[in-house]
C-alpha cells in the first residue's frame, strides 16, 4: 500500500505492507535506526517518535496509519550540527549509559517540555513514566531534562 510521509522534514512516498509497524518502517524502510525496538509491547518507550506533534510508541502504530503524517525521530532534533538542548542535557548530566532508551527518553522529554516548559521534578518523572531505563537509573535523566528546561526557557 502506498503512503506519503514527511520524516524529519523530508517528504517521500513508500510502498508498505499494511501489517508493517511504524518502528520497523522507520528503521528498515527509511533507514533511520536511531529509533529503537525495545519491548515491542508499548511498555518500554524506546520506540517513541513524534507523530503530527504527539509523542507515540511507534511499535503500536501501523505505518499505514501514518499516511500523510509528519514524523520527527531522534535524528530530526539536532539542527545544523548543533545538539538539541535536551540532547545536550543528556550529554552534560550523564543521562545515559548504554544509550538504548535514550532516543525514546529524549522524545518523551521533548513532548513534556513542549507542553510544560518549566516542569518540576514530579512533572518530569510523570512525563517519562512511559519510558524504561535499565542502567542509569532515572535521576540523571531527570537532571538532563531540568538542564534542557533551563536552557530552553532562558
Amino acid at each position: 500500500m502506498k503512503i506519503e510521509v514527511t520524516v524529519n522534514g523530508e517528504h517521500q512516498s513508500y510502498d508498505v505492507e499494511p501489517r508493517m509497524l511504524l518502528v520497523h518502517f522507520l528503521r528498515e524502510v527509511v533507514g533511520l535506526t536511531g529509533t529503537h525496538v525495545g519491548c515491542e509491547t508499548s511498555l518500554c518507550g524506546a520506540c517513541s517518535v513524534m507523530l503530527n506533534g504527539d509523542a507515540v510508541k511507534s511499535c503500536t502504530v501501523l505505518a499505514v496509519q501514518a499516511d500523510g503524517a509528519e514524523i520527527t525521530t531522534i535524528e530530526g532534533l539536532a539542527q545544523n550540527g548543533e545538539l538539541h538542548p535536551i540532547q545536550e542535557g543528556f550529554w552534560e548530566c550523564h543521562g545515559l549509559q548504554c544509550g538504548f532508551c535514550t532516543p525514546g527518553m529524549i522524545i518523551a522529554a521533548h513532548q513534556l517540555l513542549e507542553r510544560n516548559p518549566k516542569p518540576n521534578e514530579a512533572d518530569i518523572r510523570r512525563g517519562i513514566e512511559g519510558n524504561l531505563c535499565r542502567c542509569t537509573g532515572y535521576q540523571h535523566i531527570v537532571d538532563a531534562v531540568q538542564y534542557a528546561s533551563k536552557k530552553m526557557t532562558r
Partner: protein
Amino acid sequence: MTPFDYHAPKTLRSAMRLVQEFGDDAKVLAGGHSLIPSMKLRLAAPSVVIDLGGVAGLKRVTAGNETITIGALATHYAVESHRLLPSKCSLLPETAAEIGDAQVRNRGTVGGSIAHADPAADWPATMLALDAQFDIAGPDGERAVAASDFFVDLFITDLQPGEVLTGIRIATPPENSGGAYVKMRQSASGFALAGVAAQVTLDDAGNCASVAVGVTGVAPAAYRAHAVEDALVGQGIDAVADAAAHAADGVEEFQEDHHASGDYRAHLARVFTQRALSQAIDRAA
C-alpha cells in the same frame, strides 16, 4: 501479525458500508492501543482492518452547561487536557490522566477503550458513575445505550455485529457535585487491579442527594455498586466507611490472576470505594 487488508474511510457512512460488507472478518481500528497489541500476539487475526482514524468529526470533545460529548475517536489526552472539563466534570480528566503513560494517552481513544471493554480498563468505571449514554451506529440506523446496559461480560458489550460506537454523551453534573477516580495500579502495566469512580451531588444540608459508584478490574465486566449508593443516599461523609463495605456485594465472579486473588480485589474495591467517595464528597462541598 498475520496479513490483512487495510481500509481508511474518510466518512462514517463509508466506514459503516465497509463494516457491513466485511462482517466478522473485519476489525474496527480506533487508536490501536488494544487491537494492535492483540494482533501482534495473534489473539486477534482479522483479515480486514477498518481504520476510523481518518473519519471526520469523531474526535471532538465539547463541554457545555447541559451536556458533555466525547467523540469515540477522541484520545485520552484530549480529555485530560480539555480546557473546560476540570470545572464542568473533573472526573473525566482525572480518569484520563490515570491511563497508561503520556505516549499511550496521546494515541489511545476513549471510544476504543469502551468498545474493547477490557475488564481492567479505567473508562468503564467512570462512564458508569456518570450515567453516560453511548451513541451507536448500525445497519438499521442509530441507537443509544446507557453505560449500565453496555458492559456485559469479559470483553463483551452490548455492541451487535455491524455496529460501531460513535460517541459518548454525559449530562453535565449540577452545582454541589464532585467526582473522583482512584485505582490500584498493577505496577508493570498500570492497569487497574481495582479502580473506583465516584460521583456525588450534595443537598443543602451537605448530605448526599445522589451517589453513583462504578467499579472496574474486580469482576469480568465493570459494574455499578448499587448497594453502596443505596446505603449512602441521604447520608453524609460519616456514612462513607460503612457504605463502602458493600462495594463488592452481589459480584458473582471475581477476576483472579497471578497479580491478585479475587478476595484481594474485593478488598481493594471496598478500600478504594471509601477513598473515591471521601474525595468526591470533599470536592462537592
